[in-house]
């Protein structure tokens, strides 16, 4: 139940690698945060894991299975890899219920209905508005909807791209606490990209810092939180030279 990326090189145009021999590992049930400046390749890493981008070298392995050659739409179904993209991650014109259904298309109908009701109970805010259009939700509720939808098929690995982007500090704390609850309840491992370093590290087990498509620093969440260069880069707490 491990998700790992081995020495991966990937990019959008020929000869320009955005990821340079990048390796990361997410152990079962772990929450791992990816930090890094804008353009360092964080989203690119997640796109490579879900298969939207094909690695030029290296391997992506989930639960012992090499994902090369498995098309994007089979990765959730066959490999339990769920992905919540950074932008446009809900379908506004549809209702909340319909959005959730879109996430569980290939689950058997009875199981899907049961799962949907269960998730609506876990997310009372969504449950109350199950018939409303998704674009009537607030920013925080939208993230919750995207998360809940990713959970529909019962994934083993959850990839989240900046789940706290644009949320108020209060909502942000709630969201991170929620991510932790999901991990505890569902037993999924979580790989999330974040800009809000301090808050996300608070709920994480481990973290990587990406710079220019390479792992610049890695360690437990505590180590990274106390790391001076990371502090300088993200937290505004490190010593200024």
């Amino acid at each position, binding site marked *: 139940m491990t998700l790992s990326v081995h020495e991966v090189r990937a990019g959008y145009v020929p000869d320009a690698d955005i990821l340079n021999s990048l390796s990361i590992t997410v152990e079962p049930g772990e929450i791992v945060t990816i930090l890094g400046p804008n353009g360092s390749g964080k989203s690119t890493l997640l796109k490579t894991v879900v298969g939207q981008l094909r690695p030029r070298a290296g391997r992506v392995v989930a639960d012992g299975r090499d994902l090369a050659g498995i098309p994007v*739409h089979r990765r959730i179904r066959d490999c339990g890899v769920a992905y919540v993209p950074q932008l446009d991650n809900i*379908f506004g014109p549809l209702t909340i219920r319909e959005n959730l259904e879109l996430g569980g298309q290939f689950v058997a109908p009875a199981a899907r209905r049961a799962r949907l009701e269960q998730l609506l109970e876990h997310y009372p805010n969504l449950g109350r508005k199950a018939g409303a259009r998704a674009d009537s939700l607030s920013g925080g509720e939208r993230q919750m909807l995207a998360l809940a939808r990713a959970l529909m098929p019962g994934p083993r690995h959850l990839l989240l791209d900046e789940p706290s982007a644009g949320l108020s500090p209060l909502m942000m704390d709630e969201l991170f606490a929620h991510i932790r609850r999901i991990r505890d309840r569902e037993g999924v491992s979580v790989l999330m990209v974040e800009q809000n370093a301090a808050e996300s590290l608070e709920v994480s087990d481990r973290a990587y810092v990406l710079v220019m498509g390479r792992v610049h620093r890695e360690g437990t969440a505590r180590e990274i939180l106390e790391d001076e260069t990371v502090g300088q880069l993200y937290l505004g707490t490190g010593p200024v030279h």
Partner: protein
Amino acid sequence: MLEFCLHVLIMSAIFGIAAVSLNLQAGTGGLLNFGQIALFGIGAYAVAILTRAGLPWPAALPAGMAAAALGGFAIGRLGRDLAAEYWALATLAVAELVRLVALNEDWLTGGPQGIGGIVGLFPGLDGVARALATLALAALLLLGTALMARRLGQTQFGRVLRLMRENPDLATALGHDIVACKVKVLAIGGAMAGLAGGLYTLYLAFIGPDQLLPFETFLIWTMVVLGGLGNVAGAVVGAMLVTTLYAGIPFLKDAVALPSDLTGSLRVFAIGSIVLAVLMLKPQGLVPERLRRLHAQRP
């Protein structure tokens, strides 16, 4: 005059079916099919060839639909790895290919002369009675097609199609096989377009390669865009409007004594102007897509 009106209504119903088909592909699924007339043409020729061989129309029509569905399937498979814009160009090329086959394979298609002398619909009736019966059949089939398209839009498949149109990356990440969806919607759209083509052949008792010019695809697109992409009723309204205009201009020519070589250009000009006007005044088309009714706030 009555016969002219009936003719316009019958043609509206036939092209309405073709427009509903295109609307399903392009409006709901976001697939820029610029070869719609090929699917129409495959159905039209299949029905012509089969009725010429002695098959009665109630059997030839479904066979024509099946042939066109197969054509749609092939077009969908063909460019499955192409980006949307390149696929759109490929469909245009496929349509020209189909027309060239119709033009050159004389043994099968009658070549430039096309296939005429087909035993049409309701051979036992004459004149107005026959036109009325044809209109009833065409209208019924249009209604059936439109209801089916609308129903399809409301199913999970329809929602996946719309997600595929708006956000294909999200659709695949959620586990939807968008290539399979694309092929499926083209096959369904193909069957519908084939039905329209078959009816066209049976009604006019003729089909020829000139009916498969790219301009015809443009006309069907015009109907859909005028009516409002994504809305079934819009496609029907658009088809009526364009067909009436298209058939009405020669009529106008007689009334004001225009030279007949002008009518062709006048048609294109009139249709182009109307499209421009509608798009400027109502960019969503006359009957815009309604994804969800306004009372959607109910829990």
